[in-house]
């Protein structure tokens, strides 16, 4: 019963040409960078001069060290090399002793360069050769390599001392001359200069009997250096242009070295250097040089390593080859017609996590069978953007998700952010609110005010928006489970302030389906939840035309470990299910589809993420077309993106600035409509003012300091990106069809299939990290023992809770309880009968001051509270790991324990409180079982008392607690106390998840045996625990 839910007829959507596009908009269409005037979009037929360069895939990381004393230079160089540099450039050489400087440095595998040489060149050369001979013998010549950065002027100075020919014989792999690529010169002038120097060099050597050929100079003797500006697209194009022109002219590839300078006292500098580095890399630089600075060198080196190992920028040579925009700019800069360049085909693949094979090069022929290439922006299928002019007219909204403790505190924070340039609010609620409990409910002890703001009543909501004009501020609310009371409070608050609901703008997440797959903050069962969604659709389409009534979210799937294709497919499936739900509610497609929006997570795989967002828009148009909308906006997918919190590490938190910048750039290149950038301490705690500012500044930098906003889909047309988009489209279609064949997403969820798929994906991801197949800087490579202390924001949740309870008591005392009873009764009737709108009646109750818990509980009486299904798939970890040495060692330890203790080590894995993020704990459960533990799994949402009861009954050796929402300081000590009361303090308590290092001491004092932060290698943790157990029982 296979049905195709995609309308794939090629005549369905119009192919877009420049002419078509021009007709779509009446406003300004040009912009200026440097000397050029450009359109903001280019099309396939404008790609006349498509060109690529040959030979570059990876870049070297060079550190520039200013020579003071020999010893210090040596120490600095070793430090730089240890931290990932693969080349050193010594500055100001002047009577130094190279033997000391190069002590312990294996310069047969590195480049050693010299710049600003203050002494005679011969001195360096002789020393260098002497050391090389003594270390590597007579064959040293082929082994050592590097550059002498001798500028044009300096060259004259050195010419008497040593002839080029001479040097060439002695150090055949050393390059001698360095030429600055000057931004202010046109490419033509640039090349005139090069020619002049070539001539000069040849003249200088004229006296000797040899004549050095131009070829030799071009191929072997010269290097170029370049300093980038912030103009991202323009700089990529400049570098490409230079490479391509040089290759054409001299039939060889140039060596380009980009210097990137940073400000040593400003963390924001990392944002700028990151963007510049990406431009350099995409433009094909051979080397990136950064200055040595005691304080920050490590940070900036790690930035390079992250770019190299985590974001896969260099897997494809000239990845932007074919991009209409970049090729146009490149052409403009070169201003010459190009010959075809012959490319040697290499056949190695790199396989992505999605299982897509990435070739090392993409060309026109790669894109032969792709269907989507002719579609544009601003009209269906919106491949290149929902709007025709994109950021050139309207920048994306900077929407930072935040909220903590009480409404009062959050309100202060919001107002400050709005003042600082944030353009929309995004509200995070605490877990009790998400799960429909008032702050005085005994189940939520420890969770109140953590990870978001506590809202119990309309009063709290009023406080939250105090002094904020709701008719002007777009408000995004992350709420799914307790959506009815929260929407009711919000609408009632606005009305109380005299704002019509028609004026309200913003977004409510309202995506309950994904909660059943990943985040677990649902309240009612799937079918009942869908009824609620229907009522919200009905109400908002009737009364709140400017409000986005759902934000279909893939973010949480990505965070839970899903691959890009799964995130894409399942999110679109969810979207489709909501559309059907709306139709079922009696709405017409055009009445609500234009208000749907999507929410993507953006991870570190740069190009994949760009392709994902583009593919999503195209697929969605094809999926909605069968509903025959009249309004083209119904076919339009608008995106909100958030950079991945999962990709961040708690080790070296400042590295997260780099990660977030890369991800933000990908989101923007994909064409997102709004963006949340994570704060660098997201993996540890709530952001502080300082870290929140850096996160915001990341976006402000991209918007205001670069040329990114001028262009529409600037990477569109790139053979690589279009192919990747195409592959994702096909992969996603397969997944979508599979879900459809199960009867749609609700059915699939009931069978637990999507959840299982995502979890399998997550475990695979973890094994790849554990075995260092995927490198994460600071985590499984380049670990750094030094700890960066950063301040974190601490919430005194006892205080928050007491405060909330006090407010609740006052409200309950002062309100008219007969009014409440009546309102809640009507609400309950609406729930049991299919007629009557739940939201509408909840608003009445909210105005009468019913609390969140009361409203939610009224619904629960009819719908019941949904109990999670936990399915664990074991064996995945073992499958991936079976030959791993450490894995086998760990297995042996469990066997050893059994011999001593009479049974296998037994661990109860659990979450505490209302925190439903169970990805981490599930990975632990499956992998520990595969290692040889007996693993008990507790249900979600347990109180300390309930956890201890299970630990006692199951008689475990260990309780492993995962906490991601900040309740650990109250809940874990409570568990330990209860164990003591039952005389079972022999049970070892360990904790993991997001726990700030500052709390480690506190928890250890309370009796926590071990704490594993986010990003711990699972096997390492297992071995550590086993050793502890063995020690205890021996």
């Amino acid at each position, binding site marked *: 019963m296979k049905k195709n839910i995609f309308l794939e007829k090629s005549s369905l959507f119009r192919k877009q040409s420049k002419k078509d596009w021009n007709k779509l908009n009446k406003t300004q269409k040009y912009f200026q960078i440097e000397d050029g005037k450009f359109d903001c979009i280019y099309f396939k037929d404008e790609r006349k001069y498509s060109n690529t360069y040959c030979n570059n895939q990876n870049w070297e990381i060079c550190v520039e060290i200013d020579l003071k004393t020999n010893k210090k230079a040596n120490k600095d160089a070793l430090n730089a090399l240890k931290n990932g540099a693969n080349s050193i450039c010594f500055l100001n050489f002047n009577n130094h002793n190279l033997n000391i400087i190069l002590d312990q440095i294996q310069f047969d595998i590195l480049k050693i360069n010299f710049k600003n040489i203050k002494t005679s060149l011969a001195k360096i050369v002789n020393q260098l050769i002497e050391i090389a001979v003594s270390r590597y013998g007579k064959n040293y010549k082929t082994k050592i390599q590097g550059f002498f950065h001798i500028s044009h002027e300096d060259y004259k100075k050195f010419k008497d001392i040593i002839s080029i020919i001479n040097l060439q014989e002695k150090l055949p792999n050393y390059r001698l001359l360095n030429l600055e690529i000057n931004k202010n010169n046109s490419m033509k002038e640039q090349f005139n200069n090069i020619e002049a120097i070539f001539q000069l060099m040849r003249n200088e050597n004229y006296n000797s009997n040899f004549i050095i050929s131009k070829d030799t100079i071009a191929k072997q003797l010269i290097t170029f250096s370049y300093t980038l500006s912030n103009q991202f697209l323009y700089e990529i194009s400049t570098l490409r242009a230079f490479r391509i022109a040089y290759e054409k002219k001299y039939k060889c590839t140039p060596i380009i070295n980009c210097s990137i300078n940073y400000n040593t006292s400003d963390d924001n500098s990392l944002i700028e250097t990151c963007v510049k580095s990406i431009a350099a890399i995409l433009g094909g630089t051979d080397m990136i040089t950064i200055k040595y600075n005691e304080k920050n060198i490590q940070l900036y080196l790690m930035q390079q390593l992250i770019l190299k190992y985590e974001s896969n920028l260099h897997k494809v040579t000239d990845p932007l080859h074919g991009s209409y925009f970049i090729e146009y700019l490149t052409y403009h800069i070169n201003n010459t017609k190009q010959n075809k360049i012959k490319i040697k085909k290499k056949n190695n693949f790199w396989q992505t996590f999605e299982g897509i094979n990435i070739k090392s090069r993409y060309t026109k022929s790669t894109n032969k069978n792709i269907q989507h290439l002719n579609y544009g922006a601003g009209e269906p299928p919106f491949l290149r953007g929902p709007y025709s002019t994109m950021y050139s007219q309207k920048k994306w909204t900077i929407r930072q998700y935040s909220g903590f403790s009480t409404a009062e505190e959050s309100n202060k924070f919001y107002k400050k952010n709005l003042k600082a340039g944030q353009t929309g609010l995004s509200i995070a609620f605490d877990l009790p609110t998400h799960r429909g409990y008032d702050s005085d409910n005994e189940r939520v002890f420890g969770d109140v005010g953590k990870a978001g703001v506590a809202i119990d009543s309309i009063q709290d909501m009023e406080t939250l928006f105090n002094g904020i004009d709701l008719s002007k501020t777009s408000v995004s609310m992350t709420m799914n489970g307790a959506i009815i009371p929260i929407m009711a409070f919000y609408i009632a608050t606005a009305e109380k302030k005299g704002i019509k609901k028609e004026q309200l703008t913003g977004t409510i997440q309202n995506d309950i389906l994904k909660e059943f797959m990943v985040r677990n903050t649902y309240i009612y069962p799937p079918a009942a939840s869908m009824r609620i969604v229907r009522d919200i659709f009905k109400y908002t389409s009737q009364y709140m035309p400017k409000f986005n009534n759902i934000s279909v979210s893939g973010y949480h799937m990505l965070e839970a470990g899903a691959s890009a294709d799964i995130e894409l497919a399942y999110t679109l499936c969810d979207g489709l299910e909501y559309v059907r739900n709306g139709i079922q509610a009696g709405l017409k497609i055009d009445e609500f589809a234009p208000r749907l929006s999507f929410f993507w997570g953006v991870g570190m795989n740069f190009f994949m993420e760009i392709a994902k967002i583009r593919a999503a828009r195209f697929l969605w148009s094809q999926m909605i077309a069968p509903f025959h909308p009249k309004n083209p906006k119904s076919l339009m997918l608008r995106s909100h993106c958030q950079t991945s919190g999962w990709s961040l590490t708690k080790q070296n938190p400042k590295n997260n600035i780099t990660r977030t910048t890369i991800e933000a750039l990908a989101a923007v290149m994909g064409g997102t409509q709004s963006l949340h950038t994570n704060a660098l301490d997201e993996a540890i705690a709530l952001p502080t003012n300082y870290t929140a500012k850096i996160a915001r500044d990341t976006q402000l930098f991209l918007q205001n300091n670069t040329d990114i906003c001028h262009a529409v889909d600037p990477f569109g047309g790139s053979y690589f990106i279009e192919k990747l988009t195409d592959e994702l489209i096909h992969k996603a279609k397969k997944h979508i069809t599979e879900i459809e064949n199960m009867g749609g997403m609700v059915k699939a969820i009931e069978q637990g299939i999507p959840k299982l798929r995502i979890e399998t994906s997550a475990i695979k991801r973890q094994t790849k990290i554990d075995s260092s197949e995927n490198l994460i800087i600071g985590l499984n490579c380049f670990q750094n023992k030094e700890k960066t202390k950063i301040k974190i924001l601490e919430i005194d949740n006892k205080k928050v809770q007491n405060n909330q309870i006090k407010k609740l008591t006052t409200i309950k005392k002062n309100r008219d309880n007969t009014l409440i009873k009546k309102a809640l009764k009507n609400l309950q009737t609406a729930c049991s009968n299919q007629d009557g709108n739940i939201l509408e009646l909840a608003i009445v109750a909210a105005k009468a001051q019913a609390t969140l818990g009361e409203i939610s509980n009224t619904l629960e009486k009819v719908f019941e509270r949904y109990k999670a299904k936990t*399915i664990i798939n074991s064996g995945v970890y073992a499958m991936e790991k079976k030959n791993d040495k450490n894995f086998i060692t760990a297995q042996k330890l469990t066997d050893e324990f059994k011999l001593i*203790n009479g049974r296998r080590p037994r661990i109860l894995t659990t979450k505490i409180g209302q925190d439903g993020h169970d990805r981490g704990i599930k990975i632990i459960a499956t992998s520990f079982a595969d290692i040889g533990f007996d693993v*008990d*799994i507790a249900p979600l949402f347990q109180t300390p008392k309930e956890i201890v009861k*299970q630990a*006692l*009954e*199951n*008689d475990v050796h260990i309780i492993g607690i995962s906490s991601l929402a900040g309740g650990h300081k109250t809940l874990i000590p409570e568990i330990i106390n209860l164990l003591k009361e*039952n005389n079972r303090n022999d049970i070892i308590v360990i904790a993991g998840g997001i726990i700030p290092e500052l709390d480690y001491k506190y928890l250890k004092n309370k009796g926590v045996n071990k704490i594993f932060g986010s990003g711990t290698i699972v096997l390492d943790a297992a071995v550590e625990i086993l050793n502890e157990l063995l020690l205890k029982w021996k």
Partner: protein
Amino acid sequence: MEIKDYLEGIQKCDRAILGKSITLTESSLKKDKIKAEKLLSKCIHLKQKSLRIGVSGTPGVGKSTFIESLGRKLIKENYKIAVLAIDPSSNLSKGSILGDKTRMEHLVNSDLAFIRPSPNSGTLGGVSKNTKDAITICEAAGFDIIIIETVGVGQAETLVKSMTDILIYLTLIQNGDELQFIKKGILELCDIILINKCDQNHKKSKQVAVSLQNSLTYTQQKIKQSILVCSALNGFNITNIWEQIKTIEKQKNKQGIIKKNRIQQNIFWFKKILKDELYDLIKTNPKFKDVIDNFKNKPNTNPRTAVSKIIKKTFKEDLK
């Protein structure tokens, strides 16, 4: 901890000590085994009246969910219940995932319920004498109803049968040959067959139940099995099933079947434990190493000869 501490705890129904006592019976250490035996022999005398219910069926059929539904009902009626869930999946070489509690959220949090998931100790289907021991301990602690969850593979049913008073078998309707799906032999062992997840296909489930019931009329049983549809997930028919359980219990009691069963069960276990232990003793005794090695290495040794050699060596006196 001393035996007397264990006993005291068990009598007080102290969860921590109950947990540890069961661990003791599961341990593979010699010193624990000795302790366990002592403890159990005391427990037998503390034994109180209880109803033992076995719940069996293929993995994923809904056993844990069913126990949760039934358990909720029992708790409402103030019964104290113990659930012993045996994990089917583990084998000797690795650990296991004990996830049954996630399906029994309500029971997990109730003071009236005690749930102990156990990894199997390498036996087929997972039920072993450990389970039997755990039952003894739970009875000593005064639980009214003891439910044993186990997967139905191979001989497991026979083993569950041999430690329970009432055996419930859960199954699903599949495409096509529904009757075939229920293994022969199981029908004779079970008291109640439940066609679960009827919420997914109510009409079909009903039909199958009726036709199955009809086919059963012909088998000879003192008490006829009942075949019922059920939704463990939403609780459909649970009340009815509980009534049925009580009826069967009453009937069996009236006819003295339960008592008889338990005696037979004891004999069964006596034999089984005797066999197992004797075999173990002989296998590990150096005196017999020759015989066993010889037997193992030479293809032509007659097993009977080997056995009689061992018997002769062991029971010299008695054989005279």
